[in-house]
Structures are given as structure tokens and as C-alpha cells.
């Protein structure tokens, strides 16, 4: 079995961008779905485990989120098949933290204050250094 053929920088960027965009869209949609359902611990306390599972699987937004996360997963498999983990993991993990913070502020109206921005940037650089 030979090594994977070399890919140019544009193809590398496109593969990583696909992982980051699909992942961010999926995470924001999933977070919106879970907020619309409410605290799962409380749902389980009132309706039991079946009630909690029913609340999740009957939420259309949840399936939209899972669909994009599945796309992100297959994009990741595809990228890992062509590029080294040392490139894909730090780039996608660190970029996703920043794109999620931006998307959560715009679409989920989360209070991304200075503390959260600082945390996102520190963790972003930290994940890059750690996984590179």
C-alpha cells in the first residue's frame, strides 16, 4: 500500500474549510435544538428516559444539526485519508472554536463577552500547539 498522493494547498484548504463549515453549522443547529427542548435532566425527571429521548428525536432542528455533523464527519474521514492528522486536527479543531464563537453570537444570541472571547482564543492557540 503506497502513501496518499500529494495534494496542493488549495485542495488542503478546501478540505479543512469543508470540515469547519459543516461542523460549525451542525453544532449551532444542534445547540439551537437542545435549547428549544430545554434542560434534558429536567425533562428526564418529569417524563423519564423515554420522554427525554422522544423530546430529542421529535425535534426537526436536531436532525438538521445531526445531518451537518454527519457531513462534517465524512469530510473529516475524507481529509484524514489525504492529509496527515498533524495538519487536519489542529487546523479544524482550532478554527472551529473561533467560527463557533462567531456563529453562536450571531445566530444563538449567546453572551460572548470578553471572558469567553479570551477563552476561545487561548484554547484555539493551545489546541493548535498541542495537536500540531
Amino acid at each position, binding site marked *: *500500500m*503506497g502513501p*496518499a*498522493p500529494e495534494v496542493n494547498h488549495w485542495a488542503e484548504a478546501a478540505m479543512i474549510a469543508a470540515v469547519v463549515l459543516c461542523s460549525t453549522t451542525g*453544532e*449551532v443547529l*444542534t*445547540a439551537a435544538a*437542545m*435549547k428549544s*427542548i*430545554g*434542560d*434534558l*435532566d429536567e*425533562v428526564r425527571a418529569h417524563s423519564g428516559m423515554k420522554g427525554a429521548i422522544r423530546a*430529542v428525536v421529535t425535534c426537526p432542528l*436536531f436532525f438538521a444539526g445531526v445531518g451537518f*455533523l454527519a457531513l462534517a*464527519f*465524512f469530510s*473529516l*474521514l*475524507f481529509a*484524514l*485519508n*489525504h492529509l496527515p*492528522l498533524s495538519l487536519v*486536527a489542529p487546523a479544524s*479543531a482550532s478554527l*472551529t*472554536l473561533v467560527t*463557533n*464563537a462567531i456563529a*453562536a*453570537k450571531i445566530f*444563538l*444570541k*449567546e*453572551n*460572548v*463577552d470578553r*471572558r*469567553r472571547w*479570551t*477563552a*476561545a*482564543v*487561548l*484554547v484555539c*492557540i*493551545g*489546541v*493548535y*500547539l*498541542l*495537536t*500540531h
Partner: protein
Amino acid sequence: MAHEKLKLNQYAILAVVSVSAPLGDTLLDRGMSRMPAISLAHAGALVAAVFTPWVIAGIALLICFFASYITALSWADLTYVLPATAFGNVLVALLSRFWLHEQISLSRWVGIALITVGVGFVAQGPSLTERPAVEGSR
């Protein structure tokens, strides 16, 4: 009421999210890097890859991750859960250093320090954005 302080079981769920994600990704990498290159013309081979042992083990861990992740998202903000759970990368690095006796470069130690400080920052703040009360519910 804002859920400013998390309960012990909620911290446990964040810990499961932290550990299962990086371990699952590592297993997926191990499975995919042992396969021949897959082209877009034969994208169906990606589905076949799902049924190889390393990828199955990785997917099992990622299912654990996802169940605990959506639970966490039901009582905490996305911008709280994501940085907080990045601490799993630190745990994996420390395990590889002290259990597998792998060397950790200076840049990785800096990365560990930055993630730890970042997680400390976000953990000090509220876990959920306070929403104004809905009219009529007061």
C-alpha cells in the same frame, strides 16, 4: 433562573465529553490512515470504511461523546461547552507523557498551559446566557 453554577453530575458530563472526543478521533485516525487513498470518484468507499474495527471503536466513543454533548448543550451555552471540553486534549497529552512515556515538546507544554488557562477563564463565568423573561410569565 440562570444556571450559573453547575452541579457535580453536570461537571461529570463535561468530563465525558472532554475525554471521549479526542480518544474517538485518535481511533478514527488509526483506522483511516491504514486504508488506501479514497478519491471523490469512489466516495462510497468512505461508507465501507465505517465497518472497519478501528473506525467502529472510534464511532462507539463518538456516540458516547455525542450523547453527553447534547445533554450539556441543553443546560449550557455552546461557547461555554466547547472551550471547557477542550481540556480533554490536555488529558490525552498528559496521559501520553506519564503513562506512555512519550516526549512532549516545549510548544506542546505551552499549548497545555494555554488550554488550561482558557478553560479556567470560561469555567469562572456563567454557563448559560440569561434570557429576558417572556411577557406574561411574570
